[in-house]
């Protein structure tokens, strides 16, 4: 096919590569800046002007302050608990929902589908949701308020259902002849064949639990139950000094802020490249169109 390329085409390709390098720099530099700043000396950092191309006055003091901060430790524990148990419940609920909706013999499945799809476009709004969860269901100040309300993301449910429906019927029939009931068909036939989509769902749900803060702010009163992101909000946004160091002294180190960011963001960034190749499976547009 390609014998000769026009000059215009060659110039375009070069320019395009420059644009992409630009994209990499714009996306990555702020993150690298945070990393270098976290490894810098607070005093030197305040005096520093311009881009940071290496840590100024390299040291790990900021990290030792962050690790010793009891708020961060308890936040970390809460977050890990919510991520693990929340994601497990997400996967279970989404799988059974997708499974039920992929059954062609279920009576009233169109009704059930409609009940579910409607919630993508209509909701009670922020306030009724708050009142129901806090007052009617009494989930206030309980970590369940961070886990149960979002147990199923309808969008993910539909993606998973589309995946389930693409599994050849014959596999299921074979299992049925061997005497399998629906539960074992779900767990022994369908889920093992759906590893890519389950991997993506684990990442999506896990990340959203890791990064969530709004519901925690609404429903939790006790500080000891705060997840990491709420603690981070105090450190990064509200700038409360007592949140930053355990002693409660006003020794606000710029580098401590950055170390906190790195310390709380890195776990996610470590997981994601492994699941990257499955991403496309999780974002199929065809899935949304009923």
């Amino acid at each position, binding site marked *: 096919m390609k014998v000769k390329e026009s000059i215009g085409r060659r110039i375009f390709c070069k320019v395009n590569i420059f644009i992409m390098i630009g*994209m990499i720099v714009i996306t990555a530099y702020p993150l690298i800046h945070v990393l270098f700043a976290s490894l810098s000396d607070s005093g030197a950092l305040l005096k520093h002007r311009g881009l940071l191309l290496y840590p100024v006055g390299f040291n790990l003091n900021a990290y030792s302050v962050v690790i010793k901060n009891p708020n961060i430790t308890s936040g970390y524990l809460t977050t890990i608990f919510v991520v693990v148990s929340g994601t497990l419940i997400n996967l279970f609920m989404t799988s059974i929902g997708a499974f*039920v909706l992929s059954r062609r013999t279920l009576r009233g499945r169109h009704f059930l589908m409609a009940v579910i799809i409607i919630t993508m476009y209509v909701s009670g709004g922020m306030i009724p949701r708050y009142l129901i969860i806090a007052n009617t269901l009494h989930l206030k100040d309980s970590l369940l308020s961070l886990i149960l*309300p979002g147990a199923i993301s309808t969008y993910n449910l539909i993606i998973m259902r589309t995946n389930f429906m693409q599994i050849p019927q014959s596999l299921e029939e074979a299992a049925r002849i061997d005497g399998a009931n629906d539960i074992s068909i779900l767990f022994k036939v369908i889920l093992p064949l759906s590893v890519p989509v389950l991997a993506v769902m684990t990442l999506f749900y896990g990340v959203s639990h890791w990064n969530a803060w709004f519901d925690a702010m609404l429903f939790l009163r006790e500080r000891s139950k705060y997840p990491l992101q709420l603690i981070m909000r105090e450190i990064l946004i509200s700038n409360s000094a007592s949140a930053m160091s355990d002693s409660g002294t006003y020794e606000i180190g710029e580098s401590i*802020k950055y170390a906190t960011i790195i310390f709380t963001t890195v776990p996610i960034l470590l997981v994601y490249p492994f699941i990257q190749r499955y991403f496309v499976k999780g974002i199929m547009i065809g899935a949304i169109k009923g």
Partner: protein
Amino acid sequence: MYELRARNVLPNKKHKASILKDLRRDVWIYVLAAVVLAYYILFHYLPMYGAVIAFKEYDVAKGIMGSPWVGLKNFKDFFNDYYFVRLLRNTLLLSVYNLLWSFPATILFALLLNEIRQEKFKKVVQTVTYLPHFISTIVVCGMLIDFLADDGLITQIVKLFGGEGKYYLNYPQYFRTIYVSSGIWQSIGWGSIIYLAALSGIDTELYEAATIDGAGRLRQTWHITLTGLLPTIVTLLILEIGKLMNLGYEKIILLYNGNTYETADVISTYVYRLGLGASRRYSYTTAIGLFNSLINLILLVSANKISKRLTDNSLW
């Protein structure tokens, strides 16, 4: 097995028996369906029912049922609210600006990325540009607050180009720019995945045929690539228009302050402040939220209708 059942030809009596048989065989499916239904009733339909307090004067002691009805009073109050016009304007402007910039930017990025033929380099670009999607709103806003301070990273760069050094998040005239551009930073890579998937689905023979017919690169992009992307673009556009009034309020709540309400305060943040702040005006803010959802629904349905007529693409 299932396929062999010819329900329609069976006489009525046997039909009933077959329903029972079906139910017995599918008993686990119904159990699972009940669990899923229970979730949707508790966490989606109960709040929808709770929205009736928009037509009541909600009293915590009396509960949702017992509170007295007030008709449309809360809605009327909102239309007469001192901030009504400002909230509506801010919501629409911030949302429309966001859509106008970030929607085409994502498509353009996907098109350019698709032209990169060095596979390894392409992978690197993808891995890096997907990253911000996984960084929490708190961290992104924390970085913005820091970078936009008097001596922050972005402020220093702005100064380099002759701008002033000040705390940019304290000035209402910059809020929309900050919100939209940081939004593009967060979402451009992630948003491009869906287009790249659609692009890889376009038949390459079309390009070869076009080359033989003498169509240049630009015309191929226009006639083949963009035509191939059209269903994806339209579907995403309808969905975007359907949530035009639902801005990412989390980010606004983290970034705005009293100085910037003039441009930054939108309907959902107002609902949050009045409803869940010190004053706890539950009924009033529920009414505002309901009004907001209604506009959203109207936008979604009309966008879908227009698209159905013009491009034959629709959500339902």
